[in-house]
């Protein structure tokens, strides 16, 4: 049984790391600020989300699982709103 | 080579780098950043000593860690006070350095 959970952890964490790599490559290679912002949100939302999903089978108590999900929710809220704010600033400076 | 030693070397180099910044930079804000680098280096050095003192099932020496927490808060207060002084200086003189006069004039 634990073997199956371990497999899930390996699968999801690997996918999460992949999105971190993808986000970073986008951040480095994309031509302007707004497209880079797009790449960045992939790492924030998907990368961290998948890592959290992958770590869920390993928690010892429901409280710890809740904490993990809370971290993800907070990062989602923070990154969505601050991306919006940064994008607004970029647009204002361009116009 | 173990983990505390690696961080000990890191801390020593941070102190050297920060010291260089404090002497070389001319903007006060940059001097402050460098000063904080030195501070972080000193705290990390403390942390290495504390980590090496791990005993009785603890991760490290709690006395040292307690001191470092106190240090971080005090360092922040000092930085905030220095930033307020700097901004006031900037408002008064329009300058953010501590130079007496433009060095260009000095050379002439």
């Amino acid at each position, binding site marked *: 049984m634990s073997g199956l959970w371990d497999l899930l952890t390996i699968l999801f964490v690997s996918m999460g790391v992949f999105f971190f790599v993808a986000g970073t490559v986008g951040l480095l290679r994309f031509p302007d600020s707004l497209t880079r912002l797009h790449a960045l949100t992939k790492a924030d939302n998907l990368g961290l989300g998948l890592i959290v999903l992958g770590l869920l089978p390993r928690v010892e108590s429901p409280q710890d699982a809740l904490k993990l999900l*809370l971290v993800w929710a907070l990062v989602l809220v923070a990154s*969505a*709103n601050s991306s919006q*704010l940064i994008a*607004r600033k970029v647009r204002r400076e361009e116009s | *080579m173990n*983990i*505390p*030693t690696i*961080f*000990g*070397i*890191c*801390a*020593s*180099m*941070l*102190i*050297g*780098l920060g*010291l*260089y910044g404090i*002497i*070389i*930079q*001319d903007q006060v*804000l*940059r001097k402050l*950043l460098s000063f*904080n*680098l030195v501070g*972080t280096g000193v705290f*990390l*050095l403390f*942390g*290495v000593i*504390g980590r090496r*003192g791990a005993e*009785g099932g*603890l991760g*490290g020496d*709690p*006395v*040292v860690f*307690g*001191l470092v*927490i*106190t240090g*971080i*808060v005090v360092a*922040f*207060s000092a*930085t*905030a*006070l220095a*930033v307020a002084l700097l901004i*006031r200086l*900037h408002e008064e003189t329009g300058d953010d*350095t501590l130079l007496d006069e433009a*060095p260009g004039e000095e050379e002439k």
Partner: protein
Amino acid sequence: MTGDLIFCAGLVLLILGLAAFVVAARQPFPAVVGFVVFGLLVSIAWMCLAAPDVALTEAAIGGGVTGALLLVASAKLGDPSKRGQKMKLARGFHVLVILLCIAVSAGLIAVVLSLPERAPTLALVALDPLESTGVKNPVTAVLLAYRALDTLLETVVVLLAMVGVWSLAKDSDWAKKPAFGYSPERGGPLGLLASLLIPVGVMFCVYMVWTGSDHPGGKFQGAAILAAMGILGLVAGITSVPAVTNARLRWVLILGPTVFLVAGLMGFASAGYFLAWPPEFSKAVIVLIEVALTPSLALMLGLLVAGPPRHSSQL
């Protein structure tokens, strides 16, 4: 065992690279952003050194509150390039400085490498009377039971620094509110962010203070998070600070130090010396002091970031 060693070596390289960038960057703004990231990496480093209490403090203060302080400061100071003023250094002096710094680093590295095999430690001494205090987190016990004088004086230092910041106000601006100097923005993404994050932040602060007596955490971490939430609310126009002459504001500021001091003086009566807690109540006293210190410290830290009172048409 090798996995963590490789990780720590990589982390150290990143930290040193960032530090070099902070020192060498041409403009102040990139240096400040570099320093914010630096704080983040250092808090991970504290986790590697098995010091979660310090990691929490560094994450809350080093990464969060200091970052806001420095970013606001660098925006207020503007770009220095227009003046073109630069300190010119004689080449010999520059070389001398580099040699000095290398010597300092090399000396310290030599010290680190020659540390005795069995390190001196107070861990067992600190653990020994832990039972009698009823506190399970040894770091909290150090901060509030064995070395309480340090913590008391530290609170006073933070308060003094804040008074120092206030004293930098212009005469005409005294009795005004401490303000960043830009308009609060209601609604929009910032309003949403603040209204979602602040409740969670306040809850987390309570958790930090409460858990601090048994697990990693404590009042400094909680207060720093609360201060950060206050700053966020201030920028989003949800919270506001009263003028610095406001009596209630000043009472909150001295609440923590006063409770601490009174409890310390009671030590003369109960145990015969300053800052001694009666053994049967020591956990209650420690929790009381932590709870009283948190709002005071949070307000002090927040006001340190907000800066001196200044005239502002918007606030």
